[in-house]
């Protein structure tokens, strides 16, 4: 187990390193960002000075080596826009993203799993069709559209919830639901399809034949065996969301990691973008690892040696 963990952690480091390298090179292909951060009347000498100070006047391989050396110590440099350490800026935003992700995950799991199980149990019934329609819609409708429609209906027309910002529970409702709509749809669909698969197994028929209550068959026998694909998806989704729900955070001016990174990209704030890539790739790798470990917990036949 320890060896397995060590190997996986090493892999994580390699993945993060490769992502950073790729993004570093791509960013530098887009040119030099310095001018965007200086006033329009900055003189060439001033621009040259700032480029020099930030190291943009050095050959790319040297910039890369310096970047790697810094990144290894967790130092991604100062954000060009805000003039404060990039990673610190990012970590300050993380609680907001964690809060939104947590609630969205909770809401989606609480709705999606029962919907998926019921849909599967009553396959081809009206309930199933309604469930399918809702989940397909939830997955197909783009998040920004859903968010803006939510704002127009619930904030502008009805005045129930604020249009955005963070601080009160009211401000949490619309972004949570917007984010949950998409994840819940995906969870419900995978729950339904794996449940259908499991319900056609012999032991389920045996369970029913020996007179077990249907509820018991569904939740105790079937769902548990359907959990592995669900868990995989939950893990993937969680990793992505913790890296910032880009669209939802932007639409609802939620001060999270995703919004910060979009702004950083638009502003070509290289250090901040790289710190963001580091953070997102690290989170995704780690949640994947956690999911793999959870498999062994859900299914004792899986061993990591």
């Amino acid at each position, binding site marked *: 187990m320890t060896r397995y963990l060590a190997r996986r952690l090493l892999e994580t480091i390699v993945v993060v390193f490769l992502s950073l390298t790729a993004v570093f090179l791509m960013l530098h292909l887009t*040119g030099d960002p310095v001018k965007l951060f200086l006033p329009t009347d900055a*003189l060439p000498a001033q621009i040259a000075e*700032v480029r020099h100070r930030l190291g943009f006047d050095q050959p790319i391989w040297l910039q890369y080596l310096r970047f790697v050396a810094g990144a290894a110590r967790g130092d991604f440099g100062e954000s060009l826009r805000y003039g404060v350490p990039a990673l610190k800026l990012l970590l300050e935003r993380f609680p907001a993203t964690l809060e939104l*992700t947590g609630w969205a995950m909770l809401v989606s799991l609480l709705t999606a799993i029962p919907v998926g199980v019921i849909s599967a149990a009553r396959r081809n019934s009206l309930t199933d069709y309604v469930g399918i329609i809702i989940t397909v819609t939830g997955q197909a409708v783009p998040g920004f559209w859903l968010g803006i429609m939510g704002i127009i209906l619930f904030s502008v027309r009805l005045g129930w919830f*604020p249009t955005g910002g963070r601080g009160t529970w009211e401000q949490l409702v619309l972004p949570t639901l917007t984010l949950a709509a998409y994840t819940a749809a995906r969870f419900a669909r995978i729950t339904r399809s794996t449940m259908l698969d499991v319900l056609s197994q012999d032991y389920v028929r045996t369970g029913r034949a020996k007179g077990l209550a249907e509820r018991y068959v569904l939740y105790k026998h079937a769902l*548990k*065996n359907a*959990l592995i694909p669900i868990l995989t998806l939950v893990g993937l989704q969680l990793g992505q969301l913790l890296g910032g729900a880009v669209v939802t955070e932007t639409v609802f001016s939620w001060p999270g990691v995703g919004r910060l990174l979009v702004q950083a990209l638009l502003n070509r704030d290289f250090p901040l973008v790289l710190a963001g890539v580091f953070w997102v790739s690290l989170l995704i790798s780690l949640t994947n690892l956690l999911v793999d470990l959870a498999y062994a917990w859900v299914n004792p036949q899986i061993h990591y040696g």
Partner: protein
Amino acid sequence: MNELIPRRGTVRLLALLLMAVLLLAAGCGGSSTSSKAPGGTAAPAEKPVVVALGADTRTLLPMKIVDMTTYQQIRNIYDTLLTRDPKTYALAPELATSWRALDDKTWEFKLRQGVKFHNGEPFTSESVKVTIEKILDKSWQSHYYTRFEMIDKIETPDDYTVILHTKQPSPILLLRMQGLLPMPPKLLKEKGIDELAKHPIGVGPYKFVSWTKDEKLELEANPDYWAGKPLIEKLVFRPIPEFSSRLSALLAGEVDVIQNIPVSAVEQVNSSGKARVESVPSSRVNYIALTNFKPGPLSDRRIRQALNYGVDVDGIIKYVMKGHAYRMAGALSNINPEVNKDLKPYPFDVAKAKALFQEAGVDPTKLTLTMDSPQGRYPMDKEVAQAIAAELKKNLGIEVKITYNEWGTHLDKIVKRQTGNMFLLGWGPALDAEGTIGDLAVKDRTYSGFAADPELQKMIDNARPIVDPVKRKAAWDAIQKKVYDEAMWIFLWQQEDLYGVSNRINFTPRADEEIEMWRATYRK
């Protein structure tokens, strides 16, 4: 995997999973319960007035970063030495009550007396001195450095007089005093600049309360403000990056002021019953630069003039801009106090344009030009670029190929002189001649599109040091005439800035995009 036999209670497992998520959420949700709900039970008059901007302030420090969104916010905490009159936009007193040139290189400013910083420190000539010294301290890396570099020596003969010596005659110094936000010297000395970065202390109409990055900047009225306590008690700046969210927040009554309402949304705001659109002719000018860094058709003045004659600018204002723009004749807008009023816009005259092409010996129907345009940066920018290309095709037969750039790329291409023959750009706040033509008509300036001809270059060099206001005006008038005759750009218009303002307040927008909330009032 399917032959697995369940061992543990699935329900328990599910519950554990959910609890984990719940804990995760509760752990970070805790902080949110302690913060106060907006509005709610408070009396309507006490509900803070909220200004929503597209971005957060980049710093709370004055004189550090040049950035309009930042200035719009901290300007409410700090006062400036000179301001611009809200009607004429001529320089007007604020913390400096009077000023004069003692000679070509020496300027005297008399300061307002009895003014106090928010921490009680008196405002004196020392504050001005320390602030300028801080800007000139290279290690502080202020963006404003180049704007104050001409200052050689600062004298403070008494508490309310500042004498500035410049290295060369630099009348532009006066313009620099507009936007000079003095910092408190005692605080700087005792606690350092980092303290000021965390908790700004100015002499302005609003006192700092709190700043949560990317969430809000909270201010409260300064009861001791020298010009009287502002009527709006609590002021909040909120960054809302997405325009449709900003608009929704205005229509839902959550915010009171937003900028840059697109022409297409004016009706929606005005008919909402919650807010209205207030407009102001902006000092920001929009133009099509006609580049001639490399030899080509646009190196010929006659062709540049022909392009001006060949585009129906008034028609574009009417149909594309829906009337929300003001035609300008030369490079300066009509609101610029230094505009040459004798210039008249190039008339729309296709025959004249064709004649000029013939004179230049170029067949416009065989000419292909390239143009760069940003999209979404200026009102209707993409549509304007298309309209101009269509006009040139229809009227003169010129083929125009447009490249639309993302904003950063657009600037980068201009700086590196990699644009097509033409590019669309806006410039502002532009309230003086030197800061506009002096930057945009001079070959080696960052955003110039024009390899100025030697004569124009010389005229500009000669005009920069003229201190005498009458002679200065005459020199810059002549330069504007020259720029007009040279047809440096396809001269377009000054934008109209459209603000959405909630119906509970009165707010007058300014041509220079400053947001002076201390002048706003509650509506009865």
